[in-house]
């Protein structure tokens, strides 16, 4: 069976060339069905009702948590359901780092970060008048790891991306965590781009905090994961109410629930959590190792094809090593928005702009770029078609 057959969107849009998986991936039928099943057959609230469909909802919801935990080799209680990676990062910044001077005195990050892993730290360091150390970009389009490693000693906390959503660079997170831990510095890993592509083993990494969004890994929108290592369970909640409270005593003192429920205030996104469970099943069945191998081949192929277009300038690393099939480029004399709109006329979906990472795009010498990001359903033919269309667009502007 062709992998595209598992994605119903291709039935409606057989000519769609979807190259925007870094923004959001398409959804496989199994994920869509799991959500529809919940709403059709057992759409009760979780952790409350004592009737059958409520029991079933709780079981499916908690079962999704267990499978997601297994997917990254975590314990289920270390898996907190949040809205998305952005909410997860902001939660860590507010509820763990900012309220503890040991961690909040200077933060280390990189210029490559998505705004979601940059702004919470900019705001935090401005509020408490500490310094944000930002590892710059090297001329080869990769992050300056020496800067990163040399400045661990100056900070209380580090927050870095696993993979750049602009250049596709894979950062050596195991090494970063190991070096930070030598100086007792906890690290947050933004795995929003990495989770759908690279095997994640939080135990092997000795990770502290890891965040990712469901919708970038073939799951639904509105659900993400905040992994918190057990050693940091003395985490204050941001929101109060709902299942995060066990009871409130006669003196109005709340008795908070245990982790992870303590951080899941209000009714959870139940269908979305079940959908994310189905998404990790989909990824596991396909095999993360196989995805990794395909990514490397496709990244190499697409990079060569893009480099064959003389007017096109790929920004970021030009070598195929340590990268995902995510490419940003500019074409002299043609604005990124025009390229994206013109590609759309041929059913090719790409992203144009600053990729919610304006400092990274600026560091690479551009205002706006076109980004092509490939997913599990993309093939060499998609890269060929893209380059053919790009050449036609260039011709129209000559």
């Amino acid at each position, binding site marked *: 069976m062709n992998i595209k057959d598992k994605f119903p969107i291709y039935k409606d849009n057989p000519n769609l060339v979807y190259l925007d998986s870094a923004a959001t991936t398409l959804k496989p039928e199994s994920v869509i069905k799991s959500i529809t099943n919940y709403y059709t057959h057992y759409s009760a609230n979780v952790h409350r009702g004592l009737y059958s469909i409520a029991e079933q909802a709780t079981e499916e919801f908690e079962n999704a948590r267990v499978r997601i935990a297994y997917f990254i080799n975590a314990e289920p209680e270390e898996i907190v359901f949040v809205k998305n990676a952005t909410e997860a990062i902001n939660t860590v910044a507010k509820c763990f780092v900012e309220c503890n001077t040991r961690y909040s005195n200077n933060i280390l990050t990189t210029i490559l970060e998505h705004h979601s892993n940059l702004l919470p730290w900019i705001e935090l360091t401005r509020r408490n008048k500490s310094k944000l150390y930002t590892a710059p970009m090297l001329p080869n389009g990769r992050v300056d790891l020496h800067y990163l490693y040399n400045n661990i000693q100056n900070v209380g906390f580090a927050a870095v991306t696993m993979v750049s959503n602009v250049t596709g660079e894979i950062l050596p997170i195991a090494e970063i965590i190991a070096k930070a831990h030598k100086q007792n510095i906890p690290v947050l890993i933004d795995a929003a781009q990495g989770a759908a592509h690279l095997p994640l083993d939080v135990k092997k990494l000795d990770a502290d905090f890891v965040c990712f969004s469901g919708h970038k890994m073939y799951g639904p929108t509105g659900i993400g994961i905040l992994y918190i290592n057990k050693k940091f369970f003395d985490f204050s909640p941001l929101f109060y109410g709902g299942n995060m409270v066990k009871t409130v005593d006669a003196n109005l003192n709340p008795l908070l629930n245990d982790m992870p429920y303590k951080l899941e205030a209000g009714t959870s996104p139940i269908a979305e959590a079940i959908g994310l469970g189905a998404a990790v099943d989909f990824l596991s069945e396909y095999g993360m190792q196989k995805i990794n191998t395909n990514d490397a081949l496709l990244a190499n192929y697409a990079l060569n094809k893009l480099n064959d277009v003389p007017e096109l300038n790929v920004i970021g690393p030009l070598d195929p090593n340590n990268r995902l099939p995510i490419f940003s480029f500019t074409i002299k004399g043609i604005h990124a*928005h025009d390229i994206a709109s013109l590609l759309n*006329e041929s059913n090719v979906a790409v992203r*144009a702009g*600053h990729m919610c990472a304006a400092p990274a795009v600026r560091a690479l010498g551009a*205002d706006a770029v076109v980004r092509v990001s490939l997913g599990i359903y993309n093939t060499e033919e998609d890269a060929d078609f893209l380059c053919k269309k790009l050449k036609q667009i260039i011709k129209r*502007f000559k």
Partner: protein
Amino acid sequence: MFYRQKLIELYKHPSNQKEILNPDVSHTQENVTCGDVASIFFKIENGMVIDVGFKGHGCVLAIAGTDIACNLIKSKKLKDIQSIKNEDIIKELGLENIGYNRYDCVTLGLKALNEALKKWKF
């Protein structure tokens, strides 16, 4: 949306792309999400636009839209300019269904023009 070749030609050779020295009123408008910029200048006499020009950089829709905005105000009375709508620019460019995400591109020039007018003491 469909990019007609005419639109691309307008982008490549806009008729109003020029800086006017000592303009009576001018304004620079930027779309911060993409870095597109349009600076619009005009000369006014007896409540009428006697010359208009723009400088800037941006996508086809931003540049062509700004050029069209300039065409629409030439030799017009200031009070008549205020009634120009975004839809007039879109219609003049022959565009349909431009979509939410490109709306700011097409209307960059008209925004610059309206902001410039605010600086003029009627």
